């Protein structure tokens, strides 16, 4: 994966010019261009940007904290990494996917690698979402630059303040960011307030990079994130407080000699600590108060080398180890009675050791062959007697589990015409069940209304996958289309078990994680970008997934066909763009998972921006209207069918200095 010079990137910053974006993305693929396009154009959260990528769909439980899925593969089936680091949410109800801890202002890029080649960083069957953090820019001594952003949204009276500062010394630089978001309850398309949708959080980061030698750098990163309140309208509880502390140290060495065998190596050590407290004190008519704290600690090491043993061969190899410890409990306080306590994640620890990489053989200018492989050994243990006592109620397997997973795929790239490129991947992938799937103890899923019980005896989930992609690119026109197919065996799913009685008041029953023999997920995604008459641009993406079990039952959580298109005009400092977001209805639903039919919808947005020079500085004013038609709608993967925002006017000031 080509690295872009961070200095250049930083200065380029929040451009609205598609041409410029394309320029900087020269070595990137279509996906990176899209990330950049949406990143440069909105006051967006990371979730907004992700939701527009063709490979990604979001599961929504609240106004914040959406969970990304890659081609309908969700949390346990994909890796969500930050600069290659593993981060495990501390919430048993998946209210805190790792993406919640990243702000676009500290994001350099998002890399989505799908199925057959997305396991290099950890065995998975659905792919990897890696968020690459911005690095400090080492320019010249005393150089200070940065950016201040301030934004407002009308629909929930949301404030967004963000400051970014980069200071460069002679051989070192520091980058600091701080972001504050506060939002009240938003209104839906029928102008009704959506209760419990407010949130407030801050995010801050510091990254310091030293050049020990011209090509040897030492980088220390820290990200802190504190959410003081995050409302989850689709859940019976909100998040009262959540915090993340994410720290890493990275040493990187590059070898620039053209014929060098060793091109680059990197070693990273990291630690992160996530705490998450669910809270129902804001909710009316609570029969009894409930506390649900959880925490997650992950420590790991990642080593990467890039080797070019011969002119036509390139190898990137990664070896990593990570240990994650999880704990979550629930205490209910009935009036005049003893508190009721249980572990919802009985204390457990998972050690994952893996090694994998890609070997690329460039036969000639037209033809490239790539082999991807990865092996993991995953050990999971219950770490306390109390945890084992919990699990013993539903399983004899309390002495831990060990899985060895192997993944392999082969990819061929054929440039059969100067403008056309064809790319095909076939592979086999495996993943181990997650801690929740193994040891979850009455985890309430408010989408289907069932309590979930883990199953330590689950087998590996395995998939045979293929995808083919065709790309066209000629100066102002780009086009990409991908079709993919995954056939999954031992697909992990919750199945109703009537021998259990529900724990959560009002739950419909208890589901136990088990495996259905076969599931198939197939679909396509496409995107195109055109630059017309110099100043007009036209971008669109489509995505569709079709999924079913062996019994021809639709799989749950599958987003319907979606089409996002954007037509814009930009000239010098002015930008104007209209966007249309269209989603088909989803009638292929899984009734046992509590799904219902979701109607289709069409949304229109307008975005505009203008840049003023202010001496050495630049002031960038952005404004727009989202959901102009004030459509009342929700997406298929929105839990509880909670309606999304109605018409929203936003403004944003960005000062570059």
């Amino acid at each position, binding site marked *: 994966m080509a690295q872009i010079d961070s200095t250049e990137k930083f200065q380029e910053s929040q451009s609205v010019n598609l041409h410029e974006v394309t320029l900087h993305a020269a070595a990137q693929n279509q996906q990176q261009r899209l990330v950049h396009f949406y990143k440069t154009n909105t006051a967006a959260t990371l979730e907004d940007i992700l939701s527009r990528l063709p490979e990604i769909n979001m599961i929504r439980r609240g106004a914040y904290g959406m969970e990304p899925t890659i081609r309908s593969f969700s949390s346990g089936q994909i890796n969500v990494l930050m600069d290659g680091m593993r981060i495990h949410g501390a919430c048993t109800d998946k209210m805190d996917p790792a993406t919640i801890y990243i702000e676009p202002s500290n994001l350099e890029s998002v890399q989505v690698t799908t199925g057959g080649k997305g396991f290099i960083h950890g065995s998975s069957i659905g792919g990897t979402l890696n968020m690459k953090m911005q690095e400090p820019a080492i320019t010249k001594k005393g150089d200070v630059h940065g950016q201040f952003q301030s934004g407002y949204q009308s629909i929930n009276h949301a404030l967004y303040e963000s400051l970014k500062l980069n200071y460069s010394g002679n051989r070192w630089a520091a980058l600091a960011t701080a972001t504050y978001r506060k939002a009240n309850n938003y209104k839906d398309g029928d102008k009704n307030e959506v209760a419990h949708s407010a949130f407030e959080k801050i995010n801050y980061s510091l990254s310091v990079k030293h050049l020990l030698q011209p090509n040897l750098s030492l980088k220390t990163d820290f990200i802190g994130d504190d959410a003081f309140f995050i409302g989850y309208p689709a859940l019976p509880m909100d998040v009262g407080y959540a915090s993340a502390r994410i720290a890493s140290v990275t040493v990187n060495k590059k070898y620039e000699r053209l014929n060098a065998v060793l091109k680059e190596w990197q070693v990273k050590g990291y630690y992160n600590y996530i705490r998450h407290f669910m809270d129902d004190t804001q909710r009316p008519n609570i029969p009894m108060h409930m506390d649900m704290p959880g925490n997650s600690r992950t420590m790991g090491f990642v080593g990467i080398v890039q080797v070019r043993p011969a002119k036509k061969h390139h190898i990137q190899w990664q070896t990593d180890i990570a240990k994650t410890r999880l704990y979550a409990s629930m205490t209910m306080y009935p009036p005049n*009675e003893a508190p009721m306590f249980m572990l919802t994640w009985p204390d457990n620890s998972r050690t994952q050791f893996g090694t994998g990489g890609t070997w690329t053989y460039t036969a000639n200018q037209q033809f490239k062959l790539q082999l991807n492989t990865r092996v993991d050994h995953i050990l999971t243990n219950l770490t306390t007697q109390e945890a084992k006592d919990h699990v013993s109620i539903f399983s004899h397997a309390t002495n831990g589990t060990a899985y060895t997973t192997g993944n392999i795929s082969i990819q061929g790239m054929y440039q059969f015409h100067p403008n056309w490129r064809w790319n095909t991947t076939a592979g086999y992938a495996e993943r181990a069940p997650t801690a929740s799937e193994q040891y979850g103890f009455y985890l309430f899923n408010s989408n289907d209304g069932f309590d979930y019980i883990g199953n330590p005896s689950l087998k590996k989930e395995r998939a045979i996958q293929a995808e083919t992609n065709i790309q066209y690119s000629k100066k102002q026109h780009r086009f990409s289309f991908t079709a993919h197919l995954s056939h999954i065996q031992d697909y992990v799913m919750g199945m109703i078990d009537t021998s259990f009685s529900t724990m959560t008041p009002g739950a419909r029953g208890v589901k136990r994680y088990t495996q259905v023999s076969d599931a198939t997920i197939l679909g396509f995604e496409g995107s195109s970008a055109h630059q017309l008459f110099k100043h007009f641009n036209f971008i669109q993406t489509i995505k569709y997934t079709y999924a079913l079990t062996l019994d021809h039952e639709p799989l749950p959580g599958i987003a319907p066909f979606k089409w996002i298109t954007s037509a814009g005009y930009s000239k010098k400092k002015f930008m104007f763009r209209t966007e249309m977001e269209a989603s088909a209805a989803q009638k292929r639903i899984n009734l046992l998972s509590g799904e219902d039919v979701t109607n289709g919808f069409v949304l229109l947005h307008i975005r505009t921006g203008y840049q003023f020079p202010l001496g050495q500085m630049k002031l960038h004013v952005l404004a727009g209207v989202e959901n102009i038609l004030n459509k009342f709608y929700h997406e298929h993967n929105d839990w509880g069918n909670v309606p999304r925002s109605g018409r929203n006017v936003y403004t944003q000031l960005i000062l570059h200095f």
Partner: protein
Amino acid sequence: MKRHILWMWAIVCTTSATFLFSCSKDDAPEADPTSGLHKISGGYATGSGLTVDVYSASPNVYTGYQRLSFLIKDSITGQVITETPITLHPMMDMGMMQHASPYENPAPVAINKLFKGSVVFIMPSTGGTWTLGVRVTHPVTGNTGTYSGTINVIEPTESKMKSFTSAFNGERYFVALIDPEQPKIGINDFEVAVYKRANMMSFPADSTLSVIHTPEMPTMGHGSPNNVQPVHMGKGHYKGKVNFTMSGFWRVHMDYMHGTEVADTTQYFDITF
């Protein structure tokens, strides 16, 4: 080099110190068999030449099944007796009337100098006076005597002693909850002892009933999975498993059957932890 030698010395010294210390532990004086137990009664068993001390694991004696330990000594030499038959005679004096209660005599051989038996106190001392008679025989002289002492029996906050009149045969049954003694989240041993009242002075163990237990959290309206129904293991003791999925207030409903006929379904044990 000098530093290395210093380090090695440090390691050698620490290791040998640890070794010495752990060795000396083995020579510790013999532990008192009654340590950790509470003496609830004791005195001379008239005519036997023996003293009897009665110990319980808790400082208070509660209504229900009580495990008791007996320390028997020669009253002159103070020598601890480890082999002798012992019989128990619990008695409740309510003024107008008297009644006994179920009990289990200790085995004639002591375990770590203590004889282990049990008494099921079927009511608290608020209604009268409990006395426990312990009849012992001197293993050398063959002299026999009885020590009798009062015992103050307290009703616990959650009763572990239930009784019912069987709908099947009209007999009176007494059921004592033995386990879980220290309930926890997870799988718990479940043990009850069932006795039938033959007359006011005789409460033999009963093995004719079958016992079905159903744990429930009344506040939440849920139960728990994978419980193991108690089965008779001898001497009226029924053993099974009860699973608690969370801490708090549990009610274990008890159904007693006589074959296919219902003996009683109204009783339950409340367990809060």
